[in-house]
């Protein structure tokens, strides 16, 4: 199948970018979206042209590296799917496909479709952990955790930190990303000691990074490749209120 591509090209962080037209003439339905781009790049490289820069690594939907907005939707049209797992059978002969980077104040463009997401790491560094040094941990079965709680914590912990939620949000809010980590740790007994400190520290850091606030648009949940529910944000808000009341 043949496709028309409109791809965001930008040579560096400070230069202006624009959409450039490319033709993808030999697309097989079994290709993944990124393999389709590989083929386009192979063509460009052979002509000695600068390849289109885009991020990917695992190509199986778990590392959170790939980050493309396809036809206006982060990770493209398939629900619960990263763009590396999106397959070309989803497209039709002659389709025009627009490909852009994640857009958010906190995610400056590095080049073409590649952005800098280190702000998310700094939010985790502010408090997204249990402070236990290596050594001296009690036996793994010392604390029984009801299965339902472990499963709910796992549902939240499944976040791959790709940042699609931020890219989809008109406020560029990182609430779903943070809510998932805060839920994961506040549900488990191990996370209790730092429960209040954590939520406050992470939210403060997110503000400092330029992530916006949440106005309940729900776009984040809709594009999350791991289908992390928006109830994680509600849980985070509760945690934050509790922490604020406690510190008064």
């Amino acid at each position: 199948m043949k496709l028309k591509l409109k791809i965001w090209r930008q040579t560096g962080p400070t230069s202006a970018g624009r959409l450039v037209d490319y033709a993808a003439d030999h697309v097989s339905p079994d290709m993944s979206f990124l393999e389709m781009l590989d083929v386009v790049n192979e063509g460009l490289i052979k002509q000695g042209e600068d390849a289109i820069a885009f991020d990917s690594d695992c190509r199986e939907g778990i590392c959170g590296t790939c980050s493309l907005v396809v036809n206006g939707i982060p990770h493209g049209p398939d629900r619960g799917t990263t763009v590396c797992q999106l397959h070309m059978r989803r497209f039709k002969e002659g389709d025009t496909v627009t490909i852009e980077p994640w857009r958010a104040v906190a995610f400056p463009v590095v080049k073409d479709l590649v952005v800098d997401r280190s702000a998310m790491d700094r939010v985790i560094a502010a408090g997204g952990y249990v402070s236990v040094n290596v050594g001296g941990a009690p036996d793994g079965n010392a604390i029984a955790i009801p299965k339902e709680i472990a499963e709910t914590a796992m549902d939240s912990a499944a976040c791959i930190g790709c940042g699609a939620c931020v890219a989809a949000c008109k406020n560029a809010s990182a609430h779903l990303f943070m809510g998932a980590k805060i839920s994961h740790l506040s549900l488990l007994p191990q996370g209790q000691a730092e429960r209040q400190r954590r939520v406050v520290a992470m939210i403060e850091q997110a503000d400092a990074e330029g992530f916006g606030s949440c106005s309940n648009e729900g776009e984040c949940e809709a594009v999350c490749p791991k289908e992390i529910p928006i109830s994680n944000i509600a849980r985070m808000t509760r945690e934050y209120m509790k922490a604020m009341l406690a510190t008064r």
Partner: protein
Amino acid sequence: MKLDAKTPSGALAEKWDRHKFEMKLVNPANKRKYTVICVGTGLAGASAAASLGELGYNVLNFCIQDSPRRAHSIAAQGGINAAKNYQNDGDSVYRLFYDTVKGGDYRSREANVYRLAQLSVNIIDQCVAQGVPFAREYGGLLDNRSFGGAQVSRTFYARGQTGQQLLLGAYQSLMRQVHQRAVRLFTRREMLDLVVIDGQARGIIVRNLMTGAIERYAADAVILATGGYGTAYYLSTNAVGSNVTAIWRAHKRGALFANPCYTQIHPTCIPVSGEHQSKLTLMSESLRNDGRVWVPKKTGDARSPEQIPEAERDYYLERKYPSFGNLVPRDVASRNAKEACDEGRGVGESGLAVYLDFQDAIQRLGADVIKEKYGNLFHMYQKITDENPYKVPMRIYPAIHYTMGGLWVDYNLMSNLPGLHVLGEANFSDHGANRLGASALMQGLADGYFVIPYTIGHYLASTTQPKVTADHDAFKEAADNAQRQITRLLSVKGNRGIREIHRELGRIMWDDVGMARTAESLERALTAIPKLRDEFWNGVSVPGTPDNLNQSLEYAGRVADYLEFAELLALDALHRRESCGGHFREESQTPEGEALRDDENYAYVAAWEFTGVGRQPELHKEPLQFEEVHPTQRSYK
């Protein structure tokens, strides 16, 4: 050069405790005066950097991804072993040790493996304390599943995302140290050279992938935890950025490369669909707990699977290996799949696949239970193949998955170059010629959380070194060296694609240095690889400039290293005229077609010394002694 494994004396079970006592310590107040470079943020690197930061060392931590959390360890699916015996099914440290030595086909070091089994139990405790949401039973205690090569249930898991959850635990601990300024993080940096001064590893040269700047970092010790080299085969289950570059360039600076030919082929991957394919997707081994592997009994049977009656199916693993059944080790399962396809009984369009069927398990347990256990894997399968594995059996085929070989290290995880430590998949140490499932995560975390914090202290406390800074001539020489390679890559200006050449290398490796190797196929590869290397250096096209993000340049550098390294891999395979574990030489098999070892001549670690590109490397042998487990013909019947 005499290789000293530095294995402590004494009874096997006491070696590590005694060694911990005998090792020198660094005074807590002095630790921050020592700088340690750690390259890699996978399970091995992140756990090492976090632990050393906690201890008070000044740690510099590097990775090529934009975030440490994206290291390839994130993709591990099935689980992590530990000898907890929570199931009361007869497990013990000794049994895990025994299974691992046997699974590795008696080509690993007993003392290392025993320590690994001992530490396995601490890993689970540590991870639980970090909040890793392992699967649990209704009573709230930790759940286990079974993996190949074991008759006990000792694998801990977090759905099909165990690697992700373990890595996030380590990453979070790491970020806590970053926050406390004990660890400085350098993301999107690629190590391009190791700096050796007076025989000691004293620093690294990296390329800042965002700006193209060549940067120098000096330290008192260097740790490489840069993962495996499976992408030498182009198609593998590894992440596309996985590479041999860091360890290969350290090898070129004098570090010995051990057992490069020990590569693992995973039996259950989604088959190749076409030329465009950029990677293969693993379907976790845990699926073999409930999935049954079969092919039609008749050759060339083109009926769809549901039309083939029970009596005309060959559940060949259950038939040939009644006691382990579908849970035989990976090398055995892979070779049997290849054999079935070679006989013309393969399924799917290409005939290069076998079925992995869940119908019985779904009937027995219900689709919901199967979904809870494997939901994300089934989802992934359906995404890629457009087929519903709840309804039709999966089609699977073996693929390159893991590399047991790596830089040679002693019991302290130090290479022959003083100060250079190597952890995780990048070293060669614990898995012999075949790794058992769920043991890589265990090894990476044992190395990083529990071994290196002791042994690096011992090294630093017992070594005197001059102070060096990155202005030293050796840094300049290494930085120039890295720069020269970049300039050279950009100046070829040929018309061949980088990927095209990598793909061709992969084809050579898979066909001639793959699942079944012969002297003839290996000789063929040894002629083809240098030829392809010449074609690369004369004809590759690397567009763009060196002074910004240039993914073509990064990729070309990695492929260039693979074109050198692949030759060593093939040469090692040729020199080892026996079959063992994942290394199968057709000339050396039992009448039943199982791998036949030659203990008399090959019970050693082959550690290769670099002598120049395209030149015969020098072989050093570390003999392997088995005092506890007597090597026998492995049997999983």
